[in-house]
């Protein structure tokens, strides 16, 4: 089981769960957490291939991804706070300022 295919399967499942979460949930928090889950899945993939090829580059990329996830967390959550303050709601369907009215 601990073969390449096994690790790939796990990482793809995590990624899929994250993608499904982004698409189907309306709560803005949960969307964010799904994004983080996707990133995790990709990290697992990278490290798997680093081990597969016996090359450290994959792990370095993985570190970078974690760093970016951290930065993103800071910004994302600040924005959520601002949105909650103005719209008083955590529903993404409410944030439709980009829409153009049809006749």
């Amino acid at each position, binding site marked *: *089981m*601990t*073969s*390449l*295919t096994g*690790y*790939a*399967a*796990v990482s*793809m*499942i*995590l990624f*899929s*769960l*994250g993608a*499904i979460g982004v*698409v*189907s949930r*309306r*709560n803005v*928090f*949960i969307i964010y*957490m*799904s994004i*983080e*889950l996707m990133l*995790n899945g990709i*990290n*697992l993939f990278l*490290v*798997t291939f680093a*081990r*597969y090829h*016996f090359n*450290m*580059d994959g*792990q*370095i990329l*993985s*570190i970078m991804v*974690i*760093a*970016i*996830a*951290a*930065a993103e*967390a*800071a*910004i994302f*959550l*600040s924005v*959520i*706070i*601002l949105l909650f303050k*103005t*719209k*008083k*709601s*955590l*529903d993404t369907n409410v944030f439709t300022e980009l829409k153009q009215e049809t006749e």
Partner: protein
Amino acid sequence: MIDFVFLALSFFAVGGGVAMLINNNPIYCALGLLISVLSVAGLFALLSATFMFMVQIIVYAGAIMTIILFILMFLNIKEEDLPHEPKKNILITMGVILMIPINLLILEGVARLPDSDMSIVEEGFGGIKELGMKLYTEWLLPFELISILLLVALIGAVVLAKKREKRGTSYD
């Protein structure tokens, strides 16, 4: 033995993800995510990436999940504030259907790669020394850029959190 560990960690990872997907209460979702992140850290360890294992726990589980939980509690979300999600199950099903082809494709591609040894390596791979060697020689430029990115994020967070003067425009 290793297989059993692998299976258990995978189970927890996926289970945490599913829990995160299904729950209505964001706190439960955050806890699910936490479990998933920790399991992924264990999987890193199985892959001889010892440094990654540590970084994942410290940064991801320790910092990012903490700040998520902190914001959740800070916003003081009550039951009424949560949005209604009547079509959640249908959408999840549709999402599953959508993701299947992508998974199939990737797994098919991976399966065609030649087999190789994935056992744990004792020394010489995945440790701090090797990581540092690569990071500060080959990957120096990306390293610097990442630090600038973190700086930008820091400044951005501070700016966004500042109190805004009323400009007379209403948001509703």
